[in-house]
């Protein structure tokens, strides 16, 4: 990398994660699922990247690889210029301080037997050498930062509402002053009227701490609202990637177009019935040949059935499609 090296927080190159499927008999050939297939991502300091895709497309696997909860089978991940692809032990623990995770379901991701401040203190206990009293103070300060009170810090998760629990989850992620926060569907488990609170809180914290986010979501309106750049994933590959405004205002890949058209617009005066995109997501262990989207694509030709398109630059974004007139 030249020039912008200082500002580049995360560089993911040609990342692949392959899982081996269990065989029904030892005589069967080994089968694999390519959950993540040759993904390239760049994230600058302070930037927010959205990752969009349907269930089973590999977005959570990608997040787990970046956080090194999984060791990728191929490619490389650099955080702050340091290669962490196969980091182990102390190096990995150091890297983990810089990246934290906010989970989807605040009902399942908090230990019911720990008080709020203990939950926030846990990462400090694990990865920093702050004395106990200071760690307690920091945990309480963080809880106040995310909008809870000092008195509430002594409460258990069940005494909080979903939105408040997600606030605890966020405070916990911020405990170690990370540079990168990955949020996997951070509001999808919350009530609609509470979502705006959490999204605004995330925006405030980003400004205050200069955080970078990777937000995984299937809700395109939320992605558009919080992200600078977006990557659309289909069956383990990025099909289109670039600035949110560029892509959402003029999507080039047929899949991105279909996704955007399928979102019901909250405006009853503009009724449109999206031409349904046909069929379901194919089985990832037996992806179709060529472009994996071709069985559902209205523009598919013989070329698409034979040859997977390479990503190329077009109108300020990267898109992988043979037919982007």
């Amino acid at each position: 990398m030249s020039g912008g090296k200082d500002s580049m927080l995360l560089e993911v190159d040609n990342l692949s994660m392959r899982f081996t499927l269990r065989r029904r008999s030892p005589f069967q050939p080994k089968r694999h699922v390519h959950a993540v297939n040759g993904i390239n991502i760049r994230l600058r300091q302070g930037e927010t990247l959205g990752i969009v895709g349907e269930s089973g497309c590999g977005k959570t696997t990608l997040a787990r690889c970046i956080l090194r909860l999984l060791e990728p089978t191929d490619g490389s991940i650099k955080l702050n210029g340091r290669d962490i692809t196969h980091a182990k032990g102390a190096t990995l623990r150091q890297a983990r301080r810089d990246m934290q995770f906010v989970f989807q379901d605040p009902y399942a991701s908090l230990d019911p037997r720990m008080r709020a401040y203990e939950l926030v203190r846990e990462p400090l206990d694990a990865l920093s050498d702050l004395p106990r009293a200071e760690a307690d103070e920091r945990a309480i300060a963080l809880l106040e930062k995310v909008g809870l009170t000092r008195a509430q810090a002594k409460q258990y998760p069940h005494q909080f509402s979903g939105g408040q629990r997600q606030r605890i989850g966020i405070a916990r992620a911020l405990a170690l002053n990370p540079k990168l926060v990955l949020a996997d569907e951070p509001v999808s488990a919350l009530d609609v009227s509470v979502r705006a609170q959490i999204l605004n809180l995330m925006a405030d914290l980003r400004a205050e701490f200069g955080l970078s986010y990777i937000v995984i979501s299937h809700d395109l309106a939320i992605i558009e609202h919080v992200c600078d750049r977006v990557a659309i994933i289909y069956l383990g590959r990025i099909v289109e990637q670039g600035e949110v405004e560029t892509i959402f205002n003029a999507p080039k890949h047929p899949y991105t177009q279909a996704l955007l058209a399928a979102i019901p617009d909250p405006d009853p005066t503009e009724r449109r019935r999206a031409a349904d995109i046909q069929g379901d997501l194919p089985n990832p262990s037996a992806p179709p040949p060529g472009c994996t989207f071709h069985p559902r694509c209205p523009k598919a030709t013989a070329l698409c059935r034979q040859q997977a398109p390479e990503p190329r630059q077009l109108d300020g974004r990267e898109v992988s499609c043979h037919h982007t007139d």
Partner: protein
Amino acid sequence: MALLDVNNLVTEFTTPAGPRRAVNEVSFAVQRGEILGLVGESGSGKSVTALSIMGLVDNQVGRIAGGSIGFGGMDLTKLPAAELRALRGKRLSMIFQEPLSALNPCYTIGDQIAEAFLAHGDTDKRKNHQRVLDLLRLVHIPDPEGVLRRYPHEISGGMRQRAMIAMALAYTPELLIADEPTTALDVTIQAQVLNLIDRLRRELSLGVVLITHDIGIVAQYTDRVAVMYGGRIVETGPTAEVFAAPKHPYTIGLLASVPRLRHRKPGEKRTRLQEIPGSVPSIAEITQGCRFANRCAHSMPQCAQQVPPMRERTAGHATACHWEGAA
């Protein structure tokens, strides 16, 4: 006459602290061929309203404590269990949120759909097989002969939900209740399922109660909408009108808090989302007056004491709020 006429429905559940109302004096009507959207957050009482109509409230823990549910000249709340069972699946049907947990994993899709016929005494196997095939074709399941023999885990989520819809349509019901039918599905599949429900209500002139928390779905697919909060309907009216000029502070806040796609011009700065402070009340809390009062920007002393009555503001558009700005 309306197909379904719910009047002052009250459904109570027994809790350790005594009976609590999950549905409180709810009234609405559904015409044939109409989609009514029932919108609300978790705990607002929308699913319990649906279960009350279907007579599926578990009588160990809950009961319909008041009001009436008019359907085809009968009051469903007064109907003996056997008669209700004869209606369910024949004239009244429901599809559930999570198709994987609503389907029995031990039976093939074909057998489960055929069960709807067996339950109503149609035991001719060959005829049922044909009817199941027709149903699967009606809901556009590709390769119906193959799907018939599959188990729920062997087909995709979208297919399962379509199989559920097929089951609900076994006898061409008059009323279909869809409780968050697409929450578990991906957006492209969601569009397929909703378009299917929309097409069927046109072709079969079904009355549909579509329960959802997705404002976009309400805007695109419903004719009228009833907004529920804390067990009560707080606002109801034609969808276009409620969206154009919401009256209740909760509806106003809800509509404003949802981020909208492509509302920002290129280069324009992003705005903060409007928040509704606080969180959704639990039915265990007993409150006097309006349940939204503690989150409401327009709350007045009166709101804490007296439940606001439903008042019609313009033709067909009513709201339950003391705030005069709501007029």
